[in-house]
């Protein structure tokens, strides 16, 4: 299902496919305008509405400056919306200060208290809530066990590695058992291997604690591998909400297709359309069948997208023809850049095998075959 979220006007939230299960967090028409000095002001969030389900691993994905961190800060209470409501299990929390919200944050910089031990850091939230000492101690021990950090209990936070600091930050945010955990690009400071490890760790923690996770990242690969659902954002708006499969294979618009994964774009004219499919005539005269997310009228301009792994390079004539410009070896696969006869570059991704090369050379005249299900028509 491709579901471009309409502005939510009904305040009951009933019947909508996105609110089939009870939403843990719901943003309704949230706008945040940062007023600069003088007349310049920035609309960081522009009438954003989204419903995040209970127990969901939900990711806000987008380039820097798209408003994803602003939305997270509004949910945490570090900032207040210019307009709109933020509901936590149906209750508007937008005007509450952060210390009155049962929501905790894992910060990008971890923000561990340098003058406290690992255990004191983890117990800080419970201490502020006025829990009795015995309860705090038991909970801290349980959290240390959850993130495998028992031996480092009495260390200073400056005496542990980046990956360990990350775990402490997670444990500290999870210790008060928040209704929702917010994660602001928490893995960006880790190296590649550790990041992969923590991705799995985060999924495990989410599964074990059953807490709703809202994760902010600009890393599309991270979003695809970890999320139950992803909201793709750009310029203060949510462009699409859907499962990783939805946003990758059925992007709602060109920006989403371009931002997530690698994509070839072709432009042409709609020759015929109907029943969720369209026939597109390219400039070169080639005709390609594609799925169409929206109703396109015959005769209009259209953009086609084809993922590099969904196209196939052939020796003879294909749907498109061109000359191989560069071949890039990536270990698992090979990227072959083809200069099409009409001038654009088209990339094809081929799975590598151990025994054979990709079978093509620079300068080869080749055809590109695009399967029935490989292309999709996008609106710009």
């Amino acid at each position, binding site marked *: 299902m491709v579901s471009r979220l309409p502005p939510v006007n009904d305040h009951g939230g009933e019947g909508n496919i996105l609110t089939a299960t009870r939403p843990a967090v719901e943003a309704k028409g949230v706008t945040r305008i940062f007023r600069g000095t003088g007349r310049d002001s920035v609309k960081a969030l522009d009438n954003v509405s989204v419903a995040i389900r209970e127990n969901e691993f939900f990711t806000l994905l987008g380039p820097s400056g798209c408003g994803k961190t602003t939305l997270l800060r509004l949910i*945490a*209470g*570090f900032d207040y919306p210019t307009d709109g409501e933020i509901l936590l299990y149906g209750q508007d929390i937008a005007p509450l*200060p*952060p*210390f009155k919200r049962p*929501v*905790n*944050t894992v*910060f990008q*910089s971890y*923000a*561990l*208290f*340098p*003058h406290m031990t690992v255990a004191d850091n983890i117990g*800080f*939230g419970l201490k*502020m*809530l006025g829990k009795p000492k015995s309860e705090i101690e038991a909970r801290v021990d349980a959290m240390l066990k959850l993130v495998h950090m028992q031996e480092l209990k009495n260390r200073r936070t400056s005496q542990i590695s980046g990956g360990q600091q990350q775990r402490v930050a997670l444990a*500290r*945010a999870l210790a*008060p058992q928040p209704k929702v955990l917010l994660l602001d690009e928490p893995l960006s400071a880790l190296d590649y291997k550790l990041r992969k490890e923590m991705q799995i760790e985060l999924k495990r923690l989410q599964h074990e604690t059953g807490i709703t996770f809202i994760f902010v990242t600009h890393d599309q690969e991270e979003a695809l591998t970890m999320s139950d659902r992803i909201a793709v954002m750009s310029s203060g708006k949510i462009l699409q909400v859907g499962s990783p499969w939805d946003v990758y294979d059925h992007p709602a618009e060109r920006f989403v297709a371009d931002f997530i994964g690698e994509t070839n774009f072709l432009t042409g004219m709609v020759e015929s359309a109907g029943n969720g499919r369209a026939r597109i005539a390219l400039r070169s005269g080639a005709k390609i069948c594609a799925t169409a997310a929206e109703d396109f009228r015959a005769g209009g301009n259209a953009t086609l997208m084809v993922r590099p792994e969904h196209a196939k390079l052939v020796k003879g004539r294909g749907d498109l023809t061109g000359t191989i410009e560069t071949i890039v070896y990536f270990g698992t696969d090979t990227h072959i850049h083809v200069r099409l006869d009409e001038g654009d570059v088209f990339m094809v991704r081929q799975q590598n095998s151990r025994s054979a090369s990709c079978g093509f050379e620079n300068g080869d005249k080749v055809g590109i075959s695009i399967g029935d299900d490989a292309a999709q028509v996008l609106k710009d």
Partner: protein
Amino acid sequence: MANRFDVRRQNGFVSVAMLCFFLLYLPIATLVVYAFNDNDSIVIWKGFSLRWFHVAWNNALVIEASIRSFQIAAVAAVLATITATMAALATTRTKPYPGLTLKYAFINQPLMVPEIVTAVALLIVFSRIKIWTGYSGLGYLVSAHTAFCIPFAYLPIRARLESMDLSLETAATDLYATKWKTFLHVTLPLLWPGILAGLMLAFVVSLDDVVITEFVKSGGQDTLPTYMLGQLRRTVTPEVNAISTAFLLLSIGIVTAFFFISRKRT
């Protein structure tokens, strides 16, 4: 790195540095040496003796002035540090707004206005107040010292606040700490080294002030520096050297102690 620029390898660096140290420390060294002079003169050496330390120690006026100096410095430094901490919090934990720079300037006014101007101004104002109220105690000196100590306490505290990671305070509020608890459990513990540095600076600055004290003090309110100034006008004996040397050792002691305390905290 072989070719890295290093000031220490420039021609003439050693000579310039030695000259600077020489000019800085020769007078102090001379002063300290002659404090142990067994003679009435401060320039003609006769022999080693602790006689002038003994004289100073038994001089009731010296002891009285010293105690007064420490009383004023202690009270003024504490008051100035508290005020400076509040001022530093108010000027750093806020969004920049027009007029903030002007406030910095106002807080640091004692660093910019010539001390003699402040001294004369205080003399005029305080003498009126003395006539109106009849009060002529140490309060005038304490308030004057507090005022000119504020920027010295303010600068290290503000520097510490500015270098502090703001996300720590955000994290505390996220973990259910109210503003006051955030200050108490996160900001204040991390600010301690800055506060101690400010307190130490304010204390030392108050301790050796001459100009303002000389103008503001009433009769019989000599501090150690103004007492010594008075002595210089009459006969100069190595007693002044002895007092200065004791003063110097004390200052070094205080600075070193604060240094170690603040280093332990960070």
